[in-house]
């Protein structure tokens, strides 16, 4: 019987010693376990964490999430974002055969998906290899929590030259009510040469529990392959979500990422992309939308280690109330990465006096024949544009909504799955409708 613990750090330490079944072998877990045993969490004195208020999260002593009441309509509503997709549902961290959908013919078409709990033999070895290859440079404790305590998640394997026309829709639902719950789903994705896949990963809350969500994703995209990876966070306002994603992009391969941080009390995403061969491409997009005391934090790290690779980043933030946004993006262009084209842009819209954003776009360039640009803006609504709309009969609230929706649409219009674009835009519109008051 587990003893009650006083805080998250103690709880994590305790988990190290439990005799639960974990997804990965001792060899993969042990570096993480030794970090967890130390139990050292970052504080505001750590440069990389100085803006991130972990306090509430670290004071909590959670328990593994257990499934509360189910609501089929809730699941169906989430599926609306991707009505024709292969749907993989995780309820409180556990794969749900019952709610998952349209998985029957996946394997014959060359896409293998396996819940981590069922992984064994060669597949397990390949999954672990993917994790080790993807190794994050940001050695934060949360990736060790995700990995060291991993019990569930998904391994996706796409065979050579397989074009998967229908996207995978992975839905993580937290159904717990009441006390703090914990989940740490891991997603491992491997695309063999010249294969293509689209993944939409969505996090949502059905219950009201303050969930600590610590996911991690490890992605390997082999030569000539292409992955579109959409990630949408719409969890309840008590959730604390800290995720890590490590992506390796091989020669002539492409990676496209969209992240939408639209919920949670705290949401922090660390996305690391490394080019491991020439001619690769990465497109990173994202919107964070905050209100009240929300903290939304996007970190990107792009490693241009090979020549002729392109990266293009565009992130936008809309912040209201006392919410806070962080964009911290580092592009590293190594000495031999000639003919690199790296673009990075971060634009922020503050809707209230107390909202705040810290933006830190960074370029470190060691090659001499490159095209790199970065820029960041923080601004308020354009009063000229507002007046222009009003002068045509559009009321002030509606005018503000039109302009803020348009600000986000500059990113969301690039979602090239139509139903998903409509879904994300409607979620953003609904959130804005709530936060924009008539007398803004």
């Amino acid at each position: 019987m587990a003893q009650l613990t006083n805080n998250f750090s103690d709880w994590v330490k305790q988990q190290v010693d439990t005799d639960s079944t974990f997804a990965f072998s001792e060899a993969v877990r042990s570096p993480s376990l030794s970090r967890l045993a130390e139990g050292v969490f970052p504080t505001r004195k750590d440069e990389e964490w100085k803006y991130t208020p972990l306090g509430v999260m670290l004071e909590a002593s959670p328990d593994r999430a257990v499934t509360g009441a189910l609501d089929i309509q809730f699941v169906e509503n989430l599926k609306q974002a991707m009505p024709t997709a292969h749907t993989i549902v995780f309820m409180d961290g556990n794969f749900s055969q019952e709610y998952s959908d349209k998985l029957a013919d996946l394997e014959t078409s060359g896409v293998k998906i396996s819940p981590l709990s069922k992984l064994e033999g060669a597949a397990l070895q390949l999954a672990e290899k993917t994790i080790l290859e993807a190794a994050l440079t940001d050695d934060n404790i949360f990736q060790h929590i995700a990995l060291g305590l991993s019990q569930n998640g998904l391994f996706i394997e796409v065979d050579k030259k397989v074009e998967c026309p229908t996207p995978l829709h992975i839905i993580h639902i937290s159904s717990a009510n009441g006390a703090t719950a914990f989940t740490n789903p891991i997603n491992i994705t491997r695309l063999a040469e010249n294969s293509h896949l689209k993944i939409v990963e969505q996090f949502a809350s059905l219950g009201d529990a303050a969930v600590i969500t610590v996911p991690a994703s490890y992605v390997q995209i082999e030569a000539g392959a292409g992955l579109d990876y959409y990630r949408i966070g719409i969890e309840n306002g008590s959730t604390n979500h800290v995720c890590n994603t490590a992506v390796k992009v091989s020669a002539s391969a492409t990676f496209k990422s969209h992240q939408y941080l639209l919920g949670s009390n705290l949401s922090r995403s660390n996305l690391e992309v490394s080019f491991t061969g020439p001619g690769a491409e990465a497109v990173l997009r994202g919107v964070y939308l905050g209100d009240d005391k929300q903290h939304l934090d996007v970190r990107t790290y792009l490693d241009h280690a090979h020549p002729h690779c392109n990266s293009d980043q565009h992130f936008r933030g809309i912040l209201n109330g006392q919410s806070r946004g962080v964009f911290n993006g580092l592009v590293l262009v190594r000495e031999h990465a000639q003919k690199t084209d790296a673009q990075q842009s971060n634009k922020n819209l503050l809707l209230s006096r107390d909202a705040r954003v810290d933006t830190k776009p960074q370029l470190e360039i060691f090659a001499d024949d490159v095209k790199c640009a970065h820029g960041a803006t923080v601004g308020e609504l354009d009063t000229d544009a507002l007046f222009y709309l009003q002068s045509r009969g559009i009321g002030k609230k509606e005018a503000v909504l039109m302009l803020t929706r348009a600000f986000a649409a500059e990113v969301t219009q690039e979602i090239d799955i139509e139903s998903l674009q409509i879904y994300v835009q409607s979620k953003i519109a609904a959130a804005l409708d709530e936060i924009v008051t008539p007398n803004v």
Partner: protein
Amino acid sequence: MLSIKNLQVSVEDKPILKGLNLEVKPGEIHAIMGPNGSGKSTLAHVLSGREGYSVNGGSAEYKGLNLLKMAPEIRAREGMFLAFQYPIEIPGVNNTSFLKKALNEIRKHRGEEELDAIDFLGLIRKQMKLVEMKEDLLKRPVNQGFSGGEKKRNEILQMAVLNPTLAILDETDSGLDIDALRIVAGGVNKLRSADNAFVVITHYQRLLDYIVPDFVHVLSDGQIIKSGTKELAMELEERGYDWLIKEAESKA
């Protein structure tokens, strides 16, 4: 329709309009001319409700309503329209859906039924011919990437669709070549009727070759110093503003 009496307006404590009077009746076209800095654009902005102007005295009534107390959108819904000197670019807001929204807000205010997408498209296609505008501009964000002439035509298109009772054209001719000027003026001429009125603010007489005004007023240092008919505009074209300003000063 529009009745301005002794209007005094300042910007950041600097008086700009210093007792302006103007009466506009349905069916009339009034031209307001004057040198740079005389207060022409301030007048247009105050009448349309832009922030940043303090009214220190006088009144402005539109259809018997106190114009100066109305929010900009209410003025528009009551039938006022300002064609901007510098139309604003609005990234991400589609030109067509913007105009549909605007029209339906105005129709709602009038107690009319909102137009659906098909009826609206029919209306806008018809009015686009008036200003000879290319259809692809409808699919673009409002004014974004439009040339100077396209922006001004877009203003006239909006005016044609919203069908105002009082339109104020703020230096609509500035930056237009002669062909664009003819198209824009042609649009205005087709829209004029016995029920609506236009206030055409311009620095140059040439627009008035195409939009023939019933009255011409000369604005100088925040006051109308002379009113007349279109012949006054021609005289100004020939002799400039200086003689009038001197004449006004000697009277004062």
